[in-house]
C-alpha cells in the first residue's frame, strides 16, 4: 500500500466527509503514520455549514458533531486562515490569510484533495448594479469578509426582488420577512444582523425565474417553511401556469410535491398579512435602473425541452433593490490551471479522480463536493460525492492506477506542513480554537 500524507483544500462538508471516510477506513492501528492536513482560507472550519446554512436552520448544522469527531483523530490537523493557491482577487478578499502557493504543497504531501467548494457567484451581465446573494449570505452568517452593514439598505426599502428560483432566494426571503422576534432564539444569527433586521422595512419579496413552476430549483422543505410562516402571505400563482406545469409527463415525485405546495399557497391568506412574497415565472432580467427603481424583464416561453425562450415581449416592474442568486462556480487559480475546467467552473475529474486538460488522470490528486460536481445538491449530496472520492482514493492506495499523467507530488514527503506555513504559525488557527470559542458563547 502506498503512503498517505494528504493535503485537503477546504474545510467544509465535502472535505470532512472525505477525510472521515479515509481515517475510519484506515484506523490508527493499521496506519499510524497517515497524516491529514486540512487548509481553509477563513480561520474557522466547516465551510458552508457555518457560512451558508441559514442561521434559523440549526438542525442542519448537527453534522458538525461528526466533523468534530473526525478532527479528534491525532493524525488530523486543521490549518485555518491559510489561502492556498492565491490569486490577486483572493488576496484582496483575504488580506490577512497566509498565502500558500500550490507548488509549495507538492514536496510535503503524497496526495491532494480539492474540496474547496464553489464560492464564485454567477453574475448576470444585464444587471451590473444588482447585489450578489452571496453578500447577503455572508452578512447574515457573519462571514469574516462580510461587511457589518447589510449589503442592501433594508431599513429604507419596501420591495426586494430576487433573481433565481433556488433555496438561497428562499432563505433570503424568509430571513428578511420573518419577524425579528421569531429569529431571536437562534444563537447562530449574529447580534448585529438581528439588530439590523429589527429596523428592516422590507414588506414584499418577489422572486423571479427564467422558467416555469415545474423547473424551480428550490426544495420542498424550504418552500413549505416559507408557506407556513404565521405572518407572511404568498401571492397565488396564476392557475394557468400551474395547470401547464402539471401536464408535464416527466414530473418526478419531488417536483409533484413542490407543485402541490405551490398550489396550496401560504397558511395566511394573500392580502391578510403585513408581509408577502411571490414568485414570478418565465422572466429574464434585461436591465435594472436603481434610481428609477425599474427592473426590466423579458418574457419567456418554455420550449418543448423545458428551456426558456425569449418571446420578445417585455415588462417593467417597480422594485427597490435587486439581488441575484443564480448559482456558483469554483474559483479558478494559477496552480489549478491544468485541472480546472473553465467551461463547467469545476475541477476536471472522473469520479473524484482529478484529470488534466487532456483527460488523463493525475495520480494521487482528487476532488470532492461542489469543487468536483458543481454547486448543486444538499449536504447529503456532498457526502455521497465525498465518500465516492474517498473510496476511490483508498482503492488507488491498494492498486495504483496504471496509466496516469505524472504527479507533481512525492512518495516520501517532507515533514510538517509547507514551509510558508511553518514560518507563519502565529497567524494560523487550529481546530480547537473554534470549539472553545463557540462554547464560550453558548
Amino acid at each position, binding site marked *: 500500500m502506498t503512503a498517505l500524507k494528504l493535503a485537503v483544500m477546504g474545510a467544509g462538508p465535502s472535505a470532512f466527509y472525505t477525510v472521515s471516510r479515509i481515517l475510519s477506513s484506515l484506523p490508527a492501528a493499521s496506519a499510524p503514520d497517515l497524516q491529514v492536513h486540512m487548509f481553509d482560507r477563513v480561520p474557522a472550519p466547516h465551510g458552508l455549514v457555518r457560512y451558508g446554512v441559514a442561521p434559523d436552520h440549526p438542525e442542519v448544522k448537527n453534522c458538525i458533531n461528526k466533523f468534530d469527531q473526525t478532527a479528534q483523530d491525532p493524525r488530523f490537523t486543521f490549518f485555518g486562515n491559510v489561502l492556498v493557491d492565491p490569486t490577486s482577487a483572493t488576496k484582496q478578499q483575504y488580506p490577512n490569510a497566509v498565502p500558500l502557493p500550490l507548488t509549495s504543497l507538492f514536496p510535503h504531501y503524497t496526495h491532494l484533495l480539492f474540496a474547496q467548494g464553489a464560492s464564485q457567484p454567477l453574475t448576470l451581465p444585464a444587471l451590473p448594479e444588482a447585489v450578489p446573494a452571496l453578500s447577503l449570505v455572508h452578512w447574515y452568517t457573519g462571514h469574516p469578509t462580510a461587511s457589518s452593514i447589510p449589503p442592501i439598505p433594508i431599513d429604507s426599502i419596501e420591495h426586494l426582488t430576487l433573481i433565481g428560483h433556488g433555496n438561497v432566494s428562499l432563505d433570503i426571503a424568509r430571513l428578511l420577512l420573518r419577524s425579528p422576534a421569531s429569529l431571536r432564539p437562534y444563537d447562530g444569527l449574529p447580534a448585529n444582523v438581528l439588530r439590523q433586521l429589527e429596523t428592516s422595512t422590507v414588506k414584499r419579496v418577489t422572486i423571479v425565474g427564467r422558467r416555469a413552476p415545474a423547473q424551480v430549483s428550490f426544495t420542498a422543505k424550504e418552500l413549505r417553511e416559507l408557506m407556513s410562516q404565521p405572518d407572511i402571505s404568498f401571492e397565488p400563482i396564476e392557475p394557468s401556469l400551474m395547470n401547464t406545469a402539471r401536464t408535464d409527463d416527466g414530473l418526478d415525485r419531488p417536483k409533484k410535491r413542490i407543485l402541490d405546495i405551490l398550489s396550496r399557497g401560504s397558511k395566511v391568506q394573500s392580502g391578510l398579512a403585513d408581509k408577502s412574497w411571490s414568485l414570478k415565472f418565465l422572466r429574464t432580467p434585461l436591465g435594472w435602473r436603481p434610481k428609477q427603481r425599474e427592473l426590466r424583464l423579458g418574457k419567456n416561453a418554455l420550449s418543448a425541452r423545458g428551456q426558456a425562450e425569449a418571446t420578445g415581449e417585455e415588462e417593467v416592474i417597480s422594485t427597490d433593490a435587486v439581488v441575484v442568486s443564480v448559482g456558483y462556480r469554483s474559483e479558478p487559480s494559477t496552480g489549478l490551471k491544468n485541472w480546472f475546467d473553465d467551461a463547467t467552473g469545476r475541477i476536471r475529474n472522473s469520479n473524484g479522480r482529478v484529470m488534466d486538460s487532456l483527460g488523463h488522470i493525475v495520480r494521487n490528486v482528487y476532488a470532492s463536493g461542489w469543487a468536483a460536481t458543481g454547486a448543486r445538491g444538499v449536504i447529503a449530496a456532498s457526502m455521497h460525492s465525498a465518500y465516492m472520492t474517498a473510496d476511490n482514493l483508498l482503492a488507488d492506495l491498494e492498486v495504483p492506477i496504471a496509466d496516469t499523467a505524472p504527479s507533481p507530488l512525492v512518495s516520501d514527503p517532507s515533514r510538517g506542513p509547507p514551509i510558508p506555513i511553518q514560518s507563519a504559525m502565529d497567524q494560523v488557527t487550529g481546530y480547537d480554537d473554534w470549539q472553545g470559542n463557540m*462554547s464560550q458563547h453558548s
Partner: protein
Amino acid sequence: MHALARTAGAASRGAHFCSPTRTVTRCVPSTSAPPRIWTQHRSGLLHSSAAHSNPAAAARRHAHLRHAPARPPAPSAPRSLHTSAPRHHGPLNRPAPGTGIKVTFQDSKGQPIRTVEANEGDNLLDIAHEYDIDLEGACEGSVACSTCHVILRPETYDALPEPSDEENDMLDMAFGLTDTSRLGCQVKVTRELDGLVATLPSATRNMFVDGERPLLPSPECGRGSCTGG
C-alpha cells in the same frame, strides 16, 4: 504497508512541529506580532479588522483566541452555537438477548449486515448506531437531512404510520428513493415489526464522469448554499 512504514520516519520527524493536541498554541511560534486581530460577535464568528493598530492589544486578543476556554461544564449547555440538540437520546439500552425486537440490516445488494435486538420505541437510526452499523445521521434525527434513508419491505412500510410532510420533503432528496423508503430516525420499532429488514441504500456510487451530466439526487437544487440551509 511497506511504503507506509517507510514514511514513519518522515512522520515522526515531523512530529516535533506541532504537539499531538493540535492546538496552534503549542506549535512553533513566530516572533512577529500578528498584523490584525479577530473580533468576535454573538455567534462566536470572527471579523477581521485592520483598524486595530495597537500591537499589544492585538496580541492580547490574539492570545484570547488561541487559549480558548474549556467547554462549560454544565451538561445541559449546548455543545456549540451552531448545532441544535440532537433529538435522539444517545446510546440505547440493549434488551437482554432473546427478548428484544429483531431488526436485520442489509446492504443494497441484499446481503445481511447484522441482525440485532431493540426495544419497543427505539428508532432505526439509533439502533444502527448502537450496533455500529454504517447508517449516517448527519442531522442527528432532526428531520433536516436524508442521510439515514432506509428501504423497507412493503409489508413493513404499510404497517407504519404515514410519513409526515417534513419527512417526505427530506426523502425527496434521498439517493435511490423507492416507494417504501423511510428515514431511519422516524421508524420506531414495535413488537408487531419483529423481524423487520432495513436495506441501506448504496453508500457511494460512481456519480458521473466529467463531460457527462452529473447524476445527482432530484431535484437538483442548484443553489449557492443549498446545503440544506
